[in-house]
């Protein structure tokens, strides 16, 4: 692309906010009541981390991998790509994240969810927001429940919840699981802020909080050596 410096974020926005939010309405209506199942899966993730931090990793990774693959296929590939051709290129990344979770979660000592302290509590906070707070953003902004974004159905809460889970995890290959949810949150935040949507703060805040918690943990570990 020549003269790339003359392009603004608005130049890449192919749709109006009305079309964007109606897309969530249609998606929710098409999948209801699957939301109950995905939210239940989110609660199970929290329970596994809290009560089976060492042994539940494989199940937890599986429970988290399925929403990534499902959201990539059902939302990005089948729905979002109809108004944003770039989504068709992002959808495979969601499948990759799902496969990575499955593979790393199934490895011996691949993941352990025994991290506590500031990073752990920040993880719980982000996870809780992704499950319970994200669906409230639509009604709080006057759009009604119909366009709510729900974990396992919509990409933002799925990516944010994953960041929360990863903050609670340890593992040699953990860094491989971080880039895709972080990049999605940044992409989504940019799209929302370009549309002038106040809720852009949410996908920006999740990776920012996660990064701050990770940095704090690393500094603390080095200081304690």
């Amino acid at each position, binding site marked *: 692309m*020549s*003269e790339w410096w*003359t392009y603004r974020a*608005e*130049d890449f*926005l*192919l*749709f*109006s906010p*009305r*079309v964007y939010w*109606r*897309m969530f309405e*249609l998606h929710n209506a098409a999948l209801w009541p699957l939301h109950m199942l995905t939210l239940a899966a989110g609660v199970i993730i929290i329970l596994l981390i809290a009560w089976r931090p060492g042994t539940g990793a494989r199940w937890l990774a599986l429970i988290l991998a399925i929403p990534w693959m499902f959201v990539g296929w059902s939302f990005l590939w089948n*729905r979002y790509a*109809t*108004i*944003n*051709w770039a989504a068709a290129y992002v959808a495979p990344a969601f499948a990759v994240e799902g496969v990575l979770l499955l593979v790393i979660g199934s490895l011996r000592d691949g993941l352990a969810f025994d991290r506590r302290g500031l990073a752990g509590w920040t993880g719980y906070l982000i996870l809780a927001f992704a499950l319970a707070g994200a669906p409230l953003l639509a009604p709080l902004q006057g759009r009604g429940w119909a366009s709510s974004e729900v974990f396992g159905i919509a990409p933002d809460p799925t990516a944010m919840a994953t960041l929360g889970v990863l903050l609670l995890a340890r593992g040699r290959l953990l860094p491989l699981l971080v880039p895709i949810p972080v990049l999605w949150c940044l992409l989504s935040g940019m799209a929302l802020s370009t549309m002038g949507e106040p809720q852009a703060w949410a996908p920006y805040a999740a990776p920012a909080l996660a990064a701050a918690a990770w940095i704090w943990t690393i500094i603390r570990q080095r200081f304690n050596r």
Partner: protein
Amino acid sequence: MRTTRRTFVQASLAATAAATLLPISLHAQQGLPARRPIPSTREEIPIVGLGTWITFNVGDDPVLRDECAGVMAAFFEAGGRMIDSSPMYGSSQPVIGYGLQKLGQPSALFAAEKVWTSSAAAGPAQIEQSRRFWGVPKFDLVQVHNLLAWKAHLQTLFQMKAAGAVRYVGITTSEGRRHDLLEQVMRSEPIDFVQFSYNVVDREAEARLLPLASERGIAVIVNRPFRQGALTQRLQGKPLPEWAAELGASSWAQLMLKFILAHPAVTVAIPATTRVDHVRENLSAAAGPMPDPAMRERIAAHVKAL
């Protein structure tokens, strides 16, 4: 007023000059949108078309698809012809196809499309895919979008034109980008149409592109006449000057459209909208009196001052 030989000569000269500067047909006087000739064939076309950037990208949403079809119906009903789209505009092409099918394939349609791929080899397949989305036998106009791989695509389009697969060939840019290259293409290639941004505040095209289009006999399509809605939003709530009534303009959108349409080198402006009342308002701006050069400056100065 008494008509003397002097006033008669002055009036005749003014009328001749106006006719030369504004080759607008009598349709305007009958409430229909005025027409201008496409220089390469002298085929006349209504001077307001319909853009589809963002507004027609509604995906599979059945409610919004029907709204777009409603906009298209109002557009044709008000005498519009040119609808412009691109493979870059998400679902706009299938949404246009849906509307055309719903309206029974209106014969008035002047289908303007673009080819938008960096691969020269992929151009013909993309144009064919676009044609299927629209559901038309062929496009009236295919343009190279944003000068992307323009040399190769122009050769493809010239071959298609020679074979009768497309009637006109063009090239586009927007928001003032790459005017130097556009000028080079306009000077060196036998294109029928050129498309770029021009409006009451973005007037860079007046210096070289618009005069060159006149000189070379190239039809001009003006995109982003309201800066993608930013200008109409900026002026919302501000009182329209009293003298706008002299031009038959009842809104800022109409006044700003008349500013563009009154430029003698402009062939068609393609405002995009999701609203039936706006599409009617846009097309009615193409009827009635047009501002003379002095009035155009007055419009530009007034908008700039607000």
